[in-house]
């Protein structure tokens, strides 16, 4: 437990000492705000609705499909590239502790980034009278979706020494997890007479669970879905790290 904490602290402080962190957070904020306020036909202000689920949160999984991999791309690729994995592996630390430390490190940066989007909530609260519940559950959903994408990306980053390859493989994977539950895709399979395909695909996607969260519904089954995907990815990462050395 103490080791996870040490790895976690190093991870977070190394993130915030590099300019990359600030650039990434800045871009994340610009993109989420731009989508919320400027997307043609879905401008929050012009629609005069104090509901975030169809505006701000609507885009979150898609933005996170890019942002999660970017936060996680360095995590293990860099350890391999710099050779520091050799130091860690010869210290009395278990690989799962390294993996968990890195995961929670990236998740914390994500949480900070999400917290900084609170300006949007202030704006809506100033203009109207939004319901607080769906906002908080929406944020929880964003954190879980982002955590899932981070876990997927950490597993990928364990496989390569290159950050570029790590991010270039993770982003499409995360996008696939979004697209297979995206309404047009689901409708396509329903209309094609194979609703079973639509059902299977969307049950694997992050979109249906996230949509519930953004509506204010916290379904324990969906919480379980996110947590189990995260656990599966981190467990796989642990296996990769152990077998890579064999």
């Amino acid at each position, binding site marked *: 437990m*103490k080791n996870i904490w*040490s790895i976690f*602290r190093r991870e977070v402080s190394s993130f915030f000492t590099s300019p990359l962190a600030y650039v990434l957070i800045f871009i994340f904020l610009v993109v989420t705000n731009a989508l919320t306020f400027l997307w043609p036909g879905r401008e929050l202000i012009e629609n005069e609705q104090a509901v975030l689920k169809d505006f701000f949160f609507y885009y979150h999984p898609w933005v996170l499909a890019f942002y999660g991999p970017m936060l996680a791309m360095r995590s293990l690729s860099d350890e391999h590239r710099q050779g520091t994995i*050799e*130091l860690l592996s010869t210290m*009395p630390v278990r690989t799962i502790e390294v993996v968990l430390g890195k995961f929670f490190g990236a998740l914390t940066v994500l949480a900070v980034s999400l917290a900084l989007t609170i300006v949007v909530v202030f704006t809506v609260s100033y203009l109207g009278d939004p319901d607080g519940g769906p906002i908080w559950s929406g944020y929880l959903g964003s954190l879980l979706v982002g955590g899932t994408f981070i876990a997927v990306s950490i597993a990928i980053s364990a496989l390569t020494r290159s950050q570029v390859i790590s991010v270039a493989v993770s982003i499409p994977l995360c996008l696939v997890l979004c697209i297979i539950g995206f309404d047009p895709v689901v409708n396509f399979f329903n209309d094609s007479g194979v609703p079973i395909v639509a059902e299977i695909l969307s049950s694997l996607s992050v979109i249906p669970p996230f949509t519930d969260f953004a509506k204010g519904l916290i379904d324990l089954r969906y919480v379980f879905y996110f947590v189990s995907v995260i656990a599966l990815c981190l467990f796989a990462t642990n296996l990769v790290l152990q077998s890579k*050395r064999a």
Partner: protein
Amino acid sequence: MIEVNHLTKQFGHKAAVDDISFSVEKGEVLGFLGPNGAGKSTTMRVITGFLPPSGGTVHICGISMKDKPEDAKRKIGYLPESAPLYNDMTVLGFLRFCADIRGFSGLAKRQAVDRVIVTCFLDSVIHQSIDTLSKGYRHRTCLAQALLHDPEVLILDEPTDGLDPNQKHEVRKLIRELGKEKTIVFSTHILEEVDAACTRAMIIDQGKLVAEGTPEALRNEGDGSLTELFRKLTTPDVAA
């Protein structure tokens, strides 16, 4: 202190380490010689628990690396070949992080870090970012990390590689001093270092142990010259 029995490590079909057995006692400094690619680093990586062996066993202070890796690793200080470091940290930050992982906290942590800063002459660079360090300082920072927990066993992979003559001298002196009460294995391909620091030496070639003995004994075997023996017993890179 270190017991290696019938150690084998295969990468695919190639045996990087081929049935090596040896033991090193407390107070011994074992020099590990061999041409590039002979299996020195691989042997060290298996001893330190970074790589699992394909066959054979490693015991550190009587603890099996296979059965109780964390306990065995606690006994070892390891300087890997390339002296890997976290480039985005300062020297002090890095040493503190390593001390955390080694289980230090509070006063003990401060004392351990201060001690290795003095031992490895890092005083002038502690607040410097690691990516701005010269090679000598990088090496010493990584060596400092290996000494933090005052380990009983030290495994040093080419500890003098890339150092200038003064630094080499300091590191050899340090190895000799530490060797009095620790068990040390260090690899090198600089033969003079054997005389300068070792109580015993081993030559390995193509994963096999080809000679072992005190520096004098080895020199006698090579008609008065370690270089002669080395050239006689090992396969030149071009032939391999």
